[in-house]
């Protein structure tokens, strides 16, 4: 697409300008990541008094551990669940807000509010509402004949964390979708309408394809969000339970490393987690991006 290329003569200045960013990346990302990789090959006691090199044993132990395989599976269900749920719902809300003429700004403000809530606070909120003993939601559900108890039912717990994690993310997705929708020229939709396309057809053939860059971006961001940023939500609502039903990878890293003080295993898990995210991002940009029209 690019037709003009500007050449800058200065050889040093670009590196100088990049330096602060590179330094930050090096100190806050590359260096800790390298530490994690190093530690994943070691077996240490909690105090760091005795250290032994064990090669790939930490990794081998993980893949022989049913609870780790369970955690992989749980993460998959959780990430896909949150991504689909929050993207679809945000799109519907954005379409509704976009077609609304009079109070659009009010709705937008209201819908964006949850994003300002800290993840831990959001978690506590949902924990309160759905607490099997004191929560309002289980009480109402019991009235209609459903015995909600995420303390014991893995399914209930999974639904709860997906809702809690999506709730915040919907606001974020909504903003992007709304901006995307407003960037679509009205004339395109009008032209389609004149050609006799109904609202559904207009959406799927005109609006949605034009939203595909936004959607693609949101899929990447949402997956990364569920992989890393949902820690606080899990910690505040289910703590990975019951019986590991919501123990996603990032929570397991914390649990084994900080609670269990098993640094080697925890480091190996975070290296794998890093690998998964790098791989997913690569796949998305390499293959999915081609199908996106900018």
């Amino acid at each position, binding site marked *: 697409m690019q037709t003009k290329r500007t050449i800058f003569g200065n050889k040093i200045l670009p590196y100088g300008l990049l330096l602060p960013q590179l330094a930050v990346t090096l100190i806050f990302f590359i260096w800790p990541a390298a530490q994690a990789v190093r530690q994943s090959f070691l077996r240490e*006691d*909690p105090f760091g*008094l*005795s250290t032994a090199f064990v090669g790939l044993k930490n990794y081998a132990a993980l893949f022989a551990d049913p609870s780790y395989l369970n955690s992989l599976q749980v993460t998959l269900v959780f990430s896909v669940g949150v991504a689909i749920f929050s993207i679809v719902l945000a799109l519907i809300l954005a379409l509704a807000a976009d077609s609304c003429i009079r109070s659009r700004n009010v709705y937008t403000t209201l819908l964006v509010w949850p994003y300002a809530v800290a993840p831990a606070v959001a978690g506590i909120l949902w924990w309160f509402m759905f607490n099997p003993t004191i929560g309002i939601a289980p009480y109402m559900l019991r009235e209609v004949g459903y015995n909600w108890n995420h303390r*014991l039912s893995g399914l209930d717990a999974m639904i709860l964390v997906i809702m809690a994690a999506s709730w915040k993310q919907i606001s974020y997705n909504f903003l992007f979708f709304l901006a995307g929708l407003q960037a679509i020229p009205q004339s395109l939709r009008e032209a389609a309408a004149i050609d006799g396309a109904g609202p559904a057809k207009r959406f799927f053939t005109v609006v949605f394809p034009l939203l595909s860059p936004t959607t693609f971006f949101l899929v990447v961001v949402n997956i990364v969000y569920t992989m890393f940023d949902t820690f606080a939500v899990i910690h505040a609502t289910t703590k990975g339970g019951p019986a*590991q039903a919501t123990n996603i990878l990032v929570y397991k890293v914390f649990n084994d490393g900080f*609670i269990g003080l098993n640094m080697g295993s925890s480091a190996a898990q975070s290296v794998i987690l890093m690998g998964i995210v790098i791989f997913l991002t690569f796949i998305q940009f390499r293959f999915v991006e081609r199908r996106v029209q900018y």
Partner: protein
Amino acid sequence: MIKKVAFAALALSLSASTSFAKTQITWWHAMSGELGKKLEEIVANYNKSQDAYEVVPTYKGNYTETMTAAIAAFRAKQQPDIVQVFEVGTGTMMAAKGAVYPVYKLMADTGTEFDPKGFLSAVVGYYTDTDGNMLSMPFNSSTPILYYNKNVFKKAGLDPETPPKTWQDVEAYSKKIMESGAAKCGFTSGWISWVQLENFSAWHNQPIGTLENGFGGIDPKLTVNGPVQVKHWSNLKKWQDEGVFQYGGPVGGDDAPPKFYAQECAMYMNSSAARAAVMNNAKDFEVGFGMLPYYSDVDGAPQNSIIGGATLWVLQGHDDAEYKGAADFFHYLSSPEVQANWHQFSGYLPITQAAYDLGQQQGYYEKNPGSDVAIKQMTLNPPTENSKGLRFGNYVQIRTIIDEEFEALLSGKKDAQGALDAVVERGNKLISDFAAANQ
């Protein structure tokens, strides 16, 4: 204005010089709320009582957070002098020989007066090595007891002065209570792992693990899948299905106390240190105290219960003056007056015989019926190999496993035998990992 600044500077320099003269002893602890305030009061009293040392207490979060903070600080060479570690961290602390300054050695090296025999053996047994040396300083030890709602008992036609003795009683009472409509559920429990498995085993004189529950070596095996424990866990599942028992959640069981306070459940098993909270929250009913129930058909039951709570560990890497201060502070902390006061305020056990005797002289137990149930239960019989306590590496994680398997049992995914077998299998793996890392 200038005068004010000069005065402030003077005040600052004065206060700085006085604090320089004293040796500072840092103490990281996990006591929040009322307990934290009381702890600070104890420290302030100590600081006032002498001029040489100043103890600086710092709240570092819950037990796990405090312990992990101290370990991280040790790795960064910023460790405090004293850290409060909960009982399940004992195995980890003990194995860290280069990081810990054992209390018996600290007291001997600094020439501080110290009589290990003055401590309740049921308390210190947990924290002594196989040669009988005390490794950490007991501070807040508790044991689970039974709380019950006297009003509900009365309404159901039961004698409010007689708590259930056996699990058979618990079941019969619960059914009577539920049938009479006095309460919706029979009983609930905090700390499933601690109360319904570890203490349950000790109380029935059943081994929790090999090698004297882990006291005798670094690589023991768990044995909590014996017939007595299996029977109890299948009963708990059965009782849950019947509504007799309501689960209060993993770890401490946060949902259990509200069930008892709201008079939904008539009985409640939890730490003796929950006493203050129970008394504060039991607004509309009278609370009774009892010992933990037992199965009357098990030989040797009831034996004695085991403790929970925390002790104070001294960390390596400081100078002699600070250690002298730490020893002096420990001496103060274990004095009968301080201990009796702390024990009576909190519901934690008195850690020394002298503190218990003092409470008796003061008539505290007569004035507060039920406040000595915990002590009586702990010292019911001389501890056996099975009821001395437990000491396993990685036990913090094993506690999580116990919760997980208990949830699998309650949700019907596993039967009691399967759940407890899984606890043993998964737990043993962690214990041998720990042994390998600390060999």
